[in-house]
């Protein structure tokens, strides 16, 4: 494979000398990243055989090539061109892997449900009765904070934070995008943090109360 500077990559891919060779090399880079990602993402695609995985990697490489060439003008040269290209291929491959893992998992009870995520005040290990009372108070404060969130925020919180469903899967099912759902979750976290403070709790103090490592 030819070693190129960033400028040489961009010039060649824009139709300059050696375009064909540059396209072939770029394809090798993105296919490597897609195969590597799928190989490491066994927790998502362990149920697929090697032929299916190889085909999935090819599909992801093709999709990444298209995205890279479409966004070539946005490359600002702040990284190696190859790292920039890897980012597209890894993103595409991991999104496909997550879809493979989660597509058939029923999530309607979470994503369409109206049930407020439960927050049971269980035994959090406090022996001191005063500390135990404070813990119970903190749990109630957090539970009530969650209840103040919108239904969508509660559904998203339950799916992504409690059930650890990848954000991509909620994006897919709700027909949304990552930025919008990240913002929804960000607003929920900010509100929760503010509500706790308004009730006299500082999140760091609750950390100490429950001996949660920061």
């Amino acid at each position, binding site marked *: 494979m030819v070693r190129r500077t960033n400028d040489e990559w961009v010039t060649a891919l824009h139709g300059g000398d050696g375009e064909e060779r540059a396209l072939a090399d770029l394809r*090798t880079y993105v*296919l*490597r*990243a897609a*195969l*590597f*990602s*799928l*190989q*490491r993402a066994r927790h998502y695609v362990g149920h697929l055989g*090697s032929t299916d*995985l*190889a085909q999935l*990697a090819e599909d992801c490489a093709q999709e990444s090539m298209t995205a890279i060439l479409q966004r070539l003008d946005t490359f600002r040269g*702040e*990284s*190696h061109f*190859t*790292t*920039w290209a*890897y*980012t597209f291929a*890894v*993103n595409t491959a*991991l999104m496909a892997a*997550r879809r493979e893992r989660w597509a058939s998992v029923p999530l309607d009870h979470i994503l369409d449900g109206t049930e407020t*995520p*439960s*927050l*049971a005040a*269980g035994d*959090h290990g406090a022996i001191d009765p005063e500390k135990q009372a404070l813990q119970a108070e903190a*749990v109630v404060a*957090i539970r009530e904070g969650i209840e103040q969130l919108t239904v969508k925020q509660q559904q998203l*919180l339950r799916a*992504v*934070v*409690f059930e*650890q469903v*990848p*954000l*991509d899967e909620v994006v897919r099912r709700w027909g949304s995008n*990552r*930025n919008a759902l*990240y*913002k929804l*979750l*960000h607003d929920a*976290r*900010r509100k*929760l*943090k503010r509500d*706790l403070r308004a009730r006299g709790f500082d*999140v*760091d103090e*609750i*950390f100490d109360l*429950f001996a*949660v490592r*920061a």
Partner: protein
Amino acid sequence: MSMGNFERLLRLAARTEDQELSCTECFDVLPQYVDLEVAGGAPERQVPLFRQHLEQCAVCREEYEMVRELARLEAEGRSPSVDDLRRTL
């Protein structure tokens, strides 16, 4: 809610900032951050809020870790070949 969920929620709430990067902004600065990190620089100074986003966003974090591993292997001249990767699928 199990204690694991409770801790996770507390941790995420505690580390919430008023201004955070979006996932698209994270994607855009990820290659620069990784290259600086692989080169032994101080990426957090040049790409602020990136780490904070990764703490909040599991999908972006997973992608960052994968790109970092690929970039490291590349920098060390140990990138796996496509044929080797296909064989080990």
